[in-house]
């Protein structure tokens, strides 16, 4: 029992609601801390020392100098994709399958100080990017002369996404008895990669077909690239007045005209009517053969979206539906009005694609037409986020239920179509605003719904933890910084509720 003194009433503090770093320290509520470190919140009102960390790799040579970690859900389990900087200063990406199995390096690129990643159908799409100082402002954008890569998940090195069209001198002749619509056609072959990407039509050649004959093809080009698994015949319908431009016509996939390997150089006796040509292949002509690297990746409506290339920091490249490597160089581009700031993130929420800059947020909506026709709506002209500033929830990449948690300059903020004020970090406003805006690229945030905690990696190598077991609102969330004596610079959530931290060297 507390002793009592005349004229003094004992003060009982039986609730601890986390850090309060807002305004004068003398005004800190008694149930809050004016300062704390390495404490976690238990139950509704108590606290203890934070949980310790253990090593995640049980191998002779664990990865060092870890820069970035992403979840990588594969067909066989939850894994991690990890960027490290090796002793030569080269960025290397590794695939950590479990505590004892690590593949890599999958990709080694000099100057890759960060990367964007998105899993899709078991594969992983990797975009190397870096930080560039422009007039004192650090901006993140794709590396110059680098590309989007695709990793199959098997331990083999990642390769450039998309692919070049076939080339060669196709020979065409009438085949055995068959049928075609007689007349002038243009034929070409489309290669299909192991990841399902269809190249632009290549080795185009014209040929006048005969009504009662099939068509046979010789000298069909091979790629020599092991990633090519099939080659498809494409053709135009009958052209009555050929203008001399082989690529200027609409191509269609010819039914049942596929070479299921990359070795055969012939395809004989193909019969088809023009009416059978239904599957359009024209969109492949304008696809990127190599997709430039960007600083952000996301999936929206089964399309891969890549933002902020080296050459243009205000555009996004959007793939065809279900074909993440098929990005049309004309109709696949969406643009945010340029203002000198790069696009930093893209995230789907409630059927909309939200695109952020550091202090701006816009949305696009898929109108079932080409991405370049999608209407843009300005959501907020003051708030945006950084390249890793949208909370990852499990392996979803972003939204939890019906909201996003976004690190803005204002604070850690709920976003449900608009930024909710007051922000979640309202109680630690001064703490948040003391962070260096130019270093916000280091901020990475995950939301662990099972623990009811938010983990934010801060630019100073510490972690800011927010416990929302008492309620997910600015007043009930309990904040506290954690330090580890090592420079934590990345966080991921793994296997539902396992929090993974990555530390680099200084």
């Amino acid at each position: 029992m507390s002793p009592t003194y005349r004229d003094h009433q004992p003060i009982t503090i039986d609730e601890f609601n986390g850090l309060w770093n807002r305004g004068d320290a003398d005004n800190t509520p008694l149930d809050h801390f004016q300062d704390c470190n390495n404490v976690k919140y238990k139950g509704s009102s108590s606290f203890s020392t934070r949980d310790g960390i253990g090593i995640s790799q049980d191998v002779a040579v664990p990865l060092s100098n870890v820069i970035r970690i992403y979840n990588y859900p594969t067909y066989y389990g939850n894994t991690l994709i990890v960027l490290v900087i090796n002793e030569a200063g080269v960025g290397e990406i590794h695939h950590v399958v479990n505590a004892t199995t690590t593949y890599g390096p999958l990709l080694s690129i000099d100057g890759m100080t960060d990367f964007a990643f998105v899993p899709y159908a078991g594969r992983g799409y990797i975009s190397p990017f870096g930080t560039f100082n422009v007039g004192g402002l650090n901006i993140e954008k794709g590396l110059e002369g680098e590309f989007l890569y695709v990793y199959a998940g098997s331990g083999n090195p990642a390769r450039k996404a998309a692919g070049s069209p076939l080339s060669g001198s196709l020979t065409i002749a009438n085949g055995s008895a068959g049928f075609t619509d007689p007349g002038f056609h243009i034929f070409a072959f489309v290669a299909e990669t192991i990841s399902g990407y269809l190249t632009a039509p290549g080795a185009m050649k014209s040929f006048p077909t005969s009504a009662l004959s099939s068509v046979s093809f010789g000298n069909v080009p091979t790629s020599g690239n092991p990633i090519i698994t099939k080659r498809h015949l494409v053709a135009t319908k009958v052209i009555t007045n050929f203008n001399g431009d082989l690529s200027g016509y609409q191509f269609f996939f010819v039914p049942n005209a596929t070479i299921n390997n990359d070795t055969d150089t012939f395809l004989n006796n193909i019969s088809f009517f023009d009416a059978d040509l239904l599957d359009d292949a024209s969109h492949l002509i304008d696809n990127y053969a190599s997709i430039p690297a960007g600083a952000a990746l996301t999936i929206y409506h089964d399309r891969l979206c890549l933002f902020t290339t080296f050459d243009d920091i205000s555009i996004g490249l959007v793939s065809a539906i279900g074909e993440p490597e098929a990005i049309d160089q004309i109709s696949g581009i969406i643009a945010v009005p340029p203002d000198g700031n790069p696009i930093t993130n893209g995230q789907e929420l409630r059927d909309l694609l939200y695109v952020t800059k550091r202090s701006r947020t816009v949305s696009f909506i898929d109108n079932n037409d080409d991405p370049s026709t999608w209407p843009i709506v300005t959501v907020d002209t003051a708030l945006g986020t950084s390249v890793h500033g949208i909370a990852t929830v499990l392996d979803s990449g972003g939204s939890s239920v019906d909201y996003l948690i976004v690190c803005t300059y204002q604070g850690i903020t709920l976003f449900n179509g608009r930024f909710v004020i007051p922000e979640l970090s309202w109680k630690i406003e001064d703490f948040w605003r003391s962070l260096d805006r130019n270093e916000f690229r280091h901020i990475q945030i995950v939301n662990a719904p099972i623990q009811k905690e938010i983990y934010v990696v801060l630019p100073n190598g510490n972690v800011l933890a927010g416990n929302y077991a008492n309620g997910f609102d600015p007043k009930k969330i309990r904040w506290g910084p954690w330090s580890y004596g090592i420079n934590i610079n990345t966080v991921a959530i793994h296997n539902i509720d396992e929090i993974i931290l990555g530390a680099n060297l200084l």
Partner: protein
Amino acid sequence: MGTFTIIPTSLSSGGTPFFDLFTESPGSIYGYWYYTSEFNGVKTLLELITSLVDLPFSGFSAFSEGLIVPTTFTDTIRLTNSGNCIFLDGSPVGVNINSLPTGFTPLTASIEIDPTIDIQPDIAGGGVCEYFLQKLAGNNGTANTSSFPYDFNTEAHTMLAIHNNGLGFKVHMVANLGIAQIQTIFGLRIEGTYEIQSFSFTLNPSPLPLRPGSQILVTSVGPDSGLNLSELVIDNGDGTSGINIIVGSISYNIPSSNIVEYTSTSLIFIVPSSFIPTTQDIEVTVEGNGTQFSGSMSLGILEILNEDASGIYRIVKNKTSDTFYVKSAFVSVINLLFSSSTELFVMNDDIFDIQLNPYRIIESEVLSEEDDLFLISELHTVTSDVGISNIFARTGFVGT
């Protein structure tokens, strides 16, 4: 072995009255000092002091003349040394006491004047004309002797003491009526010989990875008695010490409260909380208190090539400690400091006995003419379990 010369830089006492030879009125004063500036035209005391560098073409003269009655003139000039007053091995460029090479140890030292002292006494007239060189004030040498050596058996054997003692020149003249006596000295200075002594240290950090709270043990291992570690500056009076950990351009001062052991042969200090773990080389520097050396010197480099706690970690529920990777552990260093001698320093095999096994020498690298670096590395990859530190919670203001 090299030579050094300390040229005094300022007058601290004596020399009164002090006149320019060309402005005084002969006959009006019966005992005084004047500048000997005939050779280089100096007119002021400052110029005179400065010109002392240009030995032996300037100096001090004492004059006494018994014009009316026999006169006695006794006075002492005391000079001090400061700034870039030390000239090594005949170099015309002086250095500061704090900039002497690490391991600088004087072998001999003496107060000197140019032996061609110009004495114009009139002994026949019954006068007296004596001079005395001085180390400390009042510590006079033999009369009329142009060299006054230090005796390191009885006097502090440090360059700092020699430097700070200053030097002096006392004259004692008795002039009879009508007899003038003049004595002029040139090149008042301290001269001596020195060597750069070699010592070696081991730097042992523990636990690893090196982080706030880790301790670094510095052990002096000779030669002879080695550098006395208790002669370091451990408290500057403001909570800081003269011990620093330097990582690249970042310097972490070791608070004096972080020094947990402090003997002549070993020094243990705690890595401060501001330290950020790194794999860069970590240099440990110390400041001497002037007894054995002055200024700052490096105790060596902790080559943290493999001191690597980076990696992938996971938060473990209810775990009460942090477990870190320690990849290939650390690389300890035996740094043979001050080994400018061309003779090969013979390392005592015992030096390895203080290292934990397994270790091996992985590299011997000559960093410079002064430093030979031996790296000793632990070979295994291990983990380190460290209690969670820096835990605190400060409540709101309760009031009074």
